[in-house]
């Protein structure tokens, strides 16, 4: 893995290239590559050139940061002032917020360059990005395969080098799983480490913004730029000052391995992770067996809580204030009903109905309340495990990228593919997915490193070991901006 950001940043600072020139290069490549992979759904090239001009000014004044002048993409559920933000849903078609998400205002102030908004599952509900109203993005590694989801567009754009990095969001694995499918790095920080202000909510108690990059170094740089307490998000927390230190030192590191994470995992994936583990052990890390029986029930808990919160969060889309409004109605009730009927896609409707059901009086105790109780059990078992180890290693997904169209007829199997990623969201933990070899079809496999709550630095540093020891290679495809 090579740090795209460091290398570009060095070129910008040395004057080898200006941000405007770099941005033009990226724009040209986006135009050339995007039609084949459908990663971007809204281009923001005008904004990009403005950002680049500002960045060149900052660099000239010596005020640049590692991210100044470097082009990125944002998932389409991150609010950008005056720029389309649609969650890839018809119901938000044409929606341009008049405010920036905190993450984007932080990056913009540093002179980051926004190339566009990327494809995703509608309202981040899905594991393949196929529920997007703009059609699915395709996996640059193999265009007959999905990118994973829901941050599939970001994963595809970063993989194809038509964005230096991107920000995705992760509610049940939506950063890590597409990172795994596309052979890149995806980091989901601890819940609260990065402000959610401006992230259009799916499951509020689970959602977290994080970086998707070509290296662990890049993930740490981006993470450092966006983290910290935000007055606009009451659930955000302060994080340690200064840069996240990356040393890659794993001597004496206790790596937890839980059976629950490996049950039913195909041999190819299991072997890839065991090989990686062995390399860590050779460098002085120690393997600790831990038991977390509740992991298996984390999946239904996740679907109940996420859908319950979503059913409430999505109630605001009524056609009154913003986004899509149906035509041909006689009263306000009909307007709202028609707008939602036409505006929401099938998967979103399914989850709204499920969420509404589990919150309804008469069912609340049996579903939502019980799910909250089990959530506490999952949290408790994870924190018990972390008394014995520093990090947990696990597969990111029990599968590699599905064939396009496959999950439509296999929705339960698709839901089940989130089994390795959701416990992390349920407990609000930090976790990273790094590339870990590939399967017999040449499709990337992802490995997850999970840390204690707010031990984000340890997660990044543990992953950094794989980076500096060439244990992990990000996918490389033709085209895009090459260094």
């Amino acid at each position, binding site marked *: 893995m090579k740090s795209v950001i460091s290398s570009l940043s060095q070129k910008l600072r040395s004057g080898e290239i200006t941000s405007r020139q770099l941005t033009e290069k990226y724009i040209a490549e986006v135009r050339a590559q995007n039609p084949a992979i459908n990663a971007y759904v809204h281009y923001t090239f005008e904004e990009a050139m403005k950002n680049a001009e500002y960045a060149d000014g900052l660099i000239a004044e010596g005020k640049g940061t590692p991210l100044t002048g470097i082009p990125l993409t944002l998932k389409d559920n991150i609010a950008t002032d005056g720029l389309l933000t649609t969650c890839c849903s018809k119901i938000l078609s044409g929606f341009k*917020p008049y405010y920036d998400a905190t993450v984007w205002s932080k990056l913009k102030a540093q002179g980051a360059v926004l190339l566009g908004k990327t494809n995703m599952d509608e309202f981040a509900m899905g594991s393949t990005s196929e529920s997007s109203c703009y059609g699915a993005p395709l996996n640059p590694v193999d265009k007959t395969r999905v990118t994973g989801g829901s941050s599939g567009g970001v994963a595809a754009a970063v993989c194809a080098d038509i964005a230096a990095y991107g920000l995705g969001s992760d509610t049940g694995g939506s950063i890590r799983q597409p990172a795994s499918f596309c052979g890149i790095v995806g980091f989901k920080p601890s819940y609260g480490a990065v402000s959610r202000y401006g992230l259009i909510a799916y499951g509020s108690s689970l959602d977290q913004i994080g970086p998707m990059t070509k290296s662990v170094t890049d993930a740490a740089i981006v993470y450092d730029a966006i983290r910290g307490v935000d007055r606009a998000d009451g659930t955000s927390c302060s994080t340690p000052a200064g840069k996240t230190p990356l040393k890659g030192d794993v001597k004496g590191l206790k790596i937890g391995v839980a059976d629950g994470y490996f049950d039913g995992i195909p041999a190819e994936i299991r072997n890839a992770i065991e090989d990686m583990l062995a390399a860590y052990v050779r460098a002085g890390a120690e393997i600790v067996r831990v038991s977390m029986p509740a992991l298996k029930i984390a999946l239904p808990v996740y679907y109940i809580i996420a859908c319950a919160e979503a059913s409430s969060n999505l109630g605001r889309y009524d056609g009154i204030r913003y986004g899509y409004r149906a035509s041909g109605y006689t009263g306000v009730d009909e307007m709202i009903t028609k707008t939602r009927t036409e505006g929401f896609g099938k998967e979103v409707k399914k989850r709204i109905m499920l969420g509404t059901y589990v*919150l309804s009086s008469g069912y609340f105790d049996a579903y939502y309340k019980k799910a909250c109780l089990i959530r506490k059990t999952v949290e408790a078992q994870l924190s018990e495990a972390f008394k014995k180890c520093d990090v947990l290693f696990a597969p990111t997904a029990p599968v590699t990228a599905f064939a396009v169209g496959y999950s439509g007829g296999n929705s339960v199997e698709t839901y089940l593919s989130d089994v390795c990623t959701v416990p992390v969201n349920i407990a609000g933990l930090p976790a990273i997915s790094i590339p870990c070899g590939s399967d017999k079809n040449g499709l990337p496999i992802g490995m997850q490193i999970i840390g204690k709550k707010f031990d984000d630095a340890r997660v990044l540093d543990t992953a950094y070991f794989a980076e500096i020891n060439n244990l992990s290679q990000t996918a490389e495809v033709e085209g895009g901006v090459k260094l």
Partner: protein
Amino acid sequence: MKYRLVSGLETHVELATATKIFCGCTTAFGGSPNTHCCPVCTGQPGALPVLNKKVVEYAIRAGLATHCSINTTTHLDRKNYCYPDLPKAYQISQFDKPLCEHGYVELESGKRIGITRIHIEEDAGKLVHESGYTYIDYNRGGVPLIEIVSEPDISSPEEAKEYVEKLQLIMRYIGVSDCKMQEGSMRCDVNISVMPEGATEFGTRTEIKNMNSISYIEKAMAYEYERQIEVIESGGQIVQATLRYDERTGETSVMRTKEDAQDYRYFPEPDILTVVIPEEKVEEIRKSLPELPTDKLKRYINDLKINAATAKLLYKYKRVCDFAERAIALGAGVKNTVNLIVGTLYSKLETEEDKEKFALPITAESMAELVKLVDGGKVNITLAQKTLALMAEEGKPVSAYIKPEDMAGMDDGELTDVCRKAVEENPAAVQDFKNGKEKAIFALYGYVKKATQGKADIKKADEIIRKLINR
């Protein structure tokens, strides 16, 4: 058969914080539509609520002032329902863990109306219907409210009136709300049922929504009481329902029945962390509370020996009381102070609101100065009233109106001399008075007034004259 009325009130009170409950927008009343708004209070996608600490503090004040216990660990909940004035399609409120519980409000009779709970929540926007269209004004959206839920302890429209007035008074006293029903900063939902005298089980209740005047509350309750009795007497059954009250016809009508009651799907608000209030904070707020109106009234009557009628005219207006108490602390006599306030200053404070604000340009210091002159017999009450009226208008000190020579020498001895002269020089009037013609004494008052250029205290002169004539 005789029927008892059983009623409990749910009272919404807008808190007087400067900013809204979850964002920094102003709570000011009025303003052009949709100008006091931001992404948060219009429910824009991605915007998040951040709890205003002042709201929690104000609600705790309200709770302590109504003798509630405070839940120091509490959380907010989402109440989901779809209506155009509610931009998120859920109201952030409190469901199973209200901030305050188990309090009461004491009526003048000594009867206590129990307070079940007080919780915090956000107000919705307002729909404006105009020429066949409906417009939405979100200025009020996100204004902080407390909902005060009473026990079903109210047994007459009169008690309801007194309860609401007491609540208003308490909330104003502690400075958490202006409780203006006409501006909507206080609104009541009235739950009401009837039961035969002697019965032990409550009847089926109805709820009259959104009452915005005390007199309508009384009228609506009286109407609903009669209506329910009539239904029962004619062999019918009360249907649990939400009603609206028509102010023009004075009747209630059904908005919705229990069958189409909404399922609000309450669940804990994930965007706001559990609220933990340190015990010390609660104590700090408790200490900062002013003397409460009921306590003040009792003290005025029992300790300050103010007569009950006057005390009742005073205690409702905290600023007036503060003014009076300050003057008294500076040495002014209680009786003359309060009499001058209700006699003279109140004529300049005609409305409730005037008294509430007490914005006269007079200081407690100059009030004390004047009252002390009256107390010492240097200035008679008539002159004091005239002077006070001017002081309250012009804001100048006593010395601007009463010169030292005006009050010098008018001691009891001098007054006796003047009275003696009056008796000597008006034998006819004296004779008439002796013969039982009570009014004849006015001629003697007139003489004294003239001779002293109005400085004399006629009450005192009256005493002296009577003694001299010795009728």
